[in-house]
C-alpha cells in the first residue's frame, strides 16, 4: 500500500515538474510563435496588396458573396483581400486576390493548384491594376484555357465581392441560375424544374420553349421576355398563341430508313412532321475516336446529335442527346451555348460557329454530324418526291 502511494506520488510529481517546464517554455515561445504566424499570414496578404496594412479577417455571414470566396480580409486602406477556391482543369485551385478601394485588382496570386501546365503561377501578374471590364478582356492563354479562364472568373468574383461588401449590388448568378430564376418567375407552378423542348416546327418570334417537369405548363422565351402558359390555357400574347397552335397541330411520323439508298452510315433515325420538317438523329465521332470513319461503337465516346431541319435546309433546333467527352473540355458540346449556335443556320453557313476551345476533335465530330444531317435531308427529300 505504502509502495503504491509512493509510486503514484513520484509519477504525479514528475508530471508536475514536466508541466512546469512546458509552461515556462510556452511562456517564452508563445509570443514568438504568434508573431511568426501573423507575419506568415500577412505575408500572403501583402503579396497581393503590397501597400496594405492592418489586415483583419472579416465575418461575411451577412453578405451573399460568390461561392468561390472562402476568406475575406479587410485592409485599413479600404481594400479587401480575398481567398478563392475555384476549379480549373483540376479542383482545389486556390487564388489570393487583392482589390483596392477604387475597385481595381491590386494583385492576384495562385497559392495552390493541381493544374498541369503551370501557367497559373504567373498569370496573376497580367491582371494586376485592372478593373472588372479589363480583367474580362485579358486573353486566356491557349493550351491552358481552362486554367486561365477559371483564374479570370475568380478574379471577377473577387471584384464583384468587393462591390457587394462596399454596399453595392451585383448580379453574381451564373447563366444557369439566371435562366432558372426567369423560368420560375414566369411559371411558379413549375416549381423550378424545367426541360427545354426540342422544337420541330418553325415558330415565328419564339427563341425557346421550356416545359415544366411536373406538367404544370410551358414557358415561351421571346428575347428577354419569359411568358408562362399553364397547361390547357391559351396565351393572351399573339405570338405565343400562334406558336401554341403550330406545336399543337404538329404530328411526327417515323421514316423507314431501309427504304432509301446511300444514306450516311451515321444516321440513326429520322422522322418527318406533317409540315414537311425532318427530325434526324446523327452520330459524330468524339475525342476518343479521333474522327476515324470506322470506329468502335462500344467505346461509348461518340456524340449523338438530334437536329430538326426544314425541307428548305434550314436548321430549326439542335440538341446534344448523348456525349461522353472529357469533362471541362469536349463535354461543353452538351451546353446550349454551343449547340444553340446552329439554330437558323443552313448548309452554307453552319460551320460559322465558335468552336469549343481546347476540344477540336469534339467540334469537328459535331460538325461532321450536322453535315451528314444535311446530306440525309437531301436524300430523304428526293425519295419523297419520287
Amino acid at each position, binding site marked *: 500500500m505504502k509502495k503504491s502511494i509512493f509510486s503514484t506520488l513520484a509519477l504525479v510529481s514528475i*508530471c508536475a515538474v*514536466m*508541466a512546469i517546464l*512546458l509552461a515556462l517554455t*510556452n511562456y517564452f515561445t*508563445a509570443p514568438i510563435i504568434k508573431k511568426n504566424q501573423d507575419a506568415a499570414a500577412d505575408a500572403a496578404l501583402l503579396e497581393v496588396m503590397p501597400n496594405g496594412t492592418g489586415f483583419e479577417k472579416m465575418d461575411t455571414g451577412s453578405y451573399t458573396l460568390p461561392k468561390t470566396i472562402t476568406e475575406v480580409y479587410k485592409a485599413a486602406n479600404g481594400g479587401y483581400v480575398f481567398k478563392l477556391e475555384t476549379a480549373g482543369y483540376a*479542383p482545389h485551385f486556390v487564388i489570393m486576390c487583392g482589390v483596392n478601394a477604387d475597385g481595381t485588382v491590386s494583385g492576384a496570386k495562385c497559392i495552390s493548384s493541381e493544374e498541369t501546365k503551370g501557367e497559373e503561377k504567373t498569370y496573376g501578374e497580367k491582371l494586376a491594376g485592372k478593373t472588372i471590364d479589363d480583367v474580362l478582356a485579358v486573353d486566356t492563354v491557349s493550351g491552358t484555357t481552362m486554367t486561365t479562364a477559371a483564374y479570370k472568373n475568380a478574379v471577377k468574383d473577387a471584384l464583384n465581392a468587393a462591390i457587394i461588401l462596399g454596399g453595392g449590388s451585383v448580379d453574381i448568378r451564373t447563366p444557369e441560375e439566371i435562366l432558372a430564376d426567369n423560368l420560375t418567375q414566369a411559371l411558379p407552378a413549375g416549381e423550378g424544374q424545367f426541360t427545354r423542348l426540342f422544337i420541330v416546327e418553325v415558330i415565328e418570334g419564339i427563341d425557346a420553349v421550356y416545359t415544366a417537369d411536373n406538367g404544370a405548363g410551358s414557358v415561351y422565351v421571346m428575347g428577354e421576355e419569359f411568358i408562362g402558359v399553364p397547361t390547357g390555357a391559351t396565351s393572351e400574347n399573339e405570338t405565343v398563341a400562334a406558336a401554341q397552335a403550330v406545336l399543337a397541330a404538329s404530328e411526327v411520323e417515323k421514316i423507314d430508313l431501309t427504304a432509301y439508298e446511300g444514306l450516311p452510315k451515321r444516321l440513326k433515325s429520322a422522322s418527318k412532321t406533317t409540315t414537311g420538317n425532318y427530325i434526324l438523329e446523327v452520330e459524330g465521332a468524339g475525342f476518343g475516336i479521333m474522327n476515324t470513319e470506322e470506329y468502335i461503337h462500344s467505346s461509348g465516346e461518340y456524340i449523338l446529335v438530334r437536329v430538326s431541319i426544314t425541307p428548305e435546309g434550314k436548321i430549326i433546333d439542335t440538341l446534344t442527346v448523348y456525349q461522353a467527352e472529357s469533362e471541362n473540355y469536349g463535354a461543353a458540346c452538351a451546353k446550349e451555348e454551343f449547340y444553340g449556335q446552329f439554330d437558323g443556320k443552313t448548309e452554307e453557313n453552319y460551320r460559322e460557329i465558335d468552336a469549343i476551345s481546347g476540344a477540336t476533335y469534339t467540334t469537328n465530330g459535331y460538325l461532321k454530324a450536322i453535315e451528314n444531317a444535311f446530306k440525309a435531308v437531301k436524300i430523304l427529300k428526293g425519295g419523297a418526291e419520287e
Partner: protein
Amino acid sequence: MDAFKSLLVILLSSVLVNNYVLSRFLGICPFLGVSKKLDQATGMGIAVTAVMLLATAVTWPIQYFLLDKVGLGYMQTIVFILVIASLVQLLELLLKRFIPALHKGLGVYLPLITTNCAVLGVAINNINDGYNFLQSMVSSLGVGLGFLLAMVLFSGLRSRIEESNIPKPFRGLGATLIAASFLSLAFMGFAGIVEKLFA
C-alpha cells in the same frame, strides 16, 4: 447526404489512399513485427482499430472541452500519450475480468499498442485536420481498417518470403522491407481514386 458523402470519402481515403502504414509510415514497427502469421496479423489489426476508436473518442473531447478551454493546447502530446496508455491498461483489465475469451485472443496485443505511433498519430491528426467528432471517429475507423488490411495482405506476402532463397545480407528485414515497398507501390495506384469516385 453531403455529410454522409464526406464521411465516406474520409473513410475510403484513410483505408486506401492515405494508408497510414504504406504511405504515411506510421505504425511500421508492429507492421514489420507481427505480420508473420495471418492470425497474429489479424489480431493485431483488430486490436489497433479498437484502440484507435477508443483513443479518439476520449482524446477529441479532451482537446476541445479541456485543453483548448483552459489554453493548454501545448500539453496535447503529453496528455494524449498518457490518456492512451491508461486507456489501454484499463481496456486490458476490463477484458481480462469480464470477457476472458476475447482477452485471450486480443489481450496480448494491447499493452504493445501504447507506443504504436499510428494510434497517437491518428489522435493528433484528427485534431490537426479540424475534423468534428463524427468525422474523427470515421477517420480512426478508416485508419484502423487500413492498418488491418495492410497487415493481412503483408502476412500473405511474408509467408512466401520465408520460403525463398534470399542473398544472405537481405535475409530478415532487408527482404521484408523491399516486399513492403512493392505492396506500398500497389497502394499508390489508389491515388486520386476516391475524389474521382465521388466527383
